[in-house]
């Protein structure tokens, strides 16, 4: 994290939201551990890890973008990169789907074949949220001018 990339306000919010995300992550891991103890495995190891990382990251990014603390000075193009990544993952998912390689549940466990779907949704969500935020900012600046 670069001090020059973000101003004081942004750094303050990023760190505050990260702290909340940490608590959420620990809670989710604990809940996952309790579920696995009581009811057994529910997903393949990599899907489980993916969801345990993606959910708190979504929380962090949503709040950071809403508080205007996500995009730094040089990050205005990031939403388009995320959109492209989202489209790539969606493409991979659709090809796998067409080839009949996607199974949401295998042997009673959430399957790793849904990974492109999860990543596609993740990147598209961030990109759309970032673009909406940027649009709102631009309108506000125009009104002020």
């Amino acid at each position, binding site marked *: 994290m670069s001090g020059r990339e973000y101003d004081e306000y942004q750094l303050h919010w990023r760190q505050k939201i990260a702290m*909340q995300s*940490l608590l959420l992550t620990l809670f989710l891991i604990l809940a996952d551990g309790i579920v696995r103890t009581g009811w057994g495995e529910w997903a393949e190891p990599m899907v489980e890890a993916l969801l345990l990382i993606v959910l708190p990251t979504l929380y962090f990014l949503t709040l950071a973008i809403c508080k205007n603390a996500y995009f730094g000075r040089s990050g205005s193009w990031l939403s388009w990169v995320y959109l492209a990544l989202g489209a790539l993952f969606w493409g991979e998912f659709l090809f796998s789907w067409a080839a009949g390689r996607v199974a949401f549940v295998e042997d009673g466990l959430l399957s790793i074949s849904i990974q492109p779907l999860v990543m596609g949704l993740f990147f598209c969500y961030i990109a759309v949220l970032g673009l909406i935020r940027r649009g709102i900012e631009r309108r506000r600046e125009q009104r002020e001018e």
Partner: protein
Amino acid sequence: MSKSFLCEGQYDERQLRERDRTGMQTLIAVFLAVLADGLVREAGLNWTSPQHSAFLIVVGGQSLFGCLCALRQVLPKHPGYHRLFYCVIPVFVLGALAFFACDAIWGNFTLTEGGQLDGGATLLMVLFLGAQSLLYRIQWKRAQVEEEGGEQ
């Protein structure tokens, strides 16, 4: 943001900033641990049971956060927190270590079973907590000495 999350009165401005910065660093470490655990288990190396791995990451993450906070002199002023980390957890850790030692002498303690961490996982969790409370005690005493030196 709620007052309870900010812990008003518990930390000064510097401590609040440091706490949140430490939270961000710990979050990255926890993500890496979750990813590493997933990759290792996907590769078929079941180093511990799934339940133990989850609890180890939670306790490890919390202890890492506590240790970093203590090292950076982010010590909350609440007497309950102080009592917990200064007295309760050290007593619990010593009790647990004594229990493990007796268990090992009687031959019931198994560090690993079937190639997986068994009692070893619980021992690691206890050690994480012990390291955290030890660092807290050292830093708290140092803070007290500095405070007394400042007053004189």
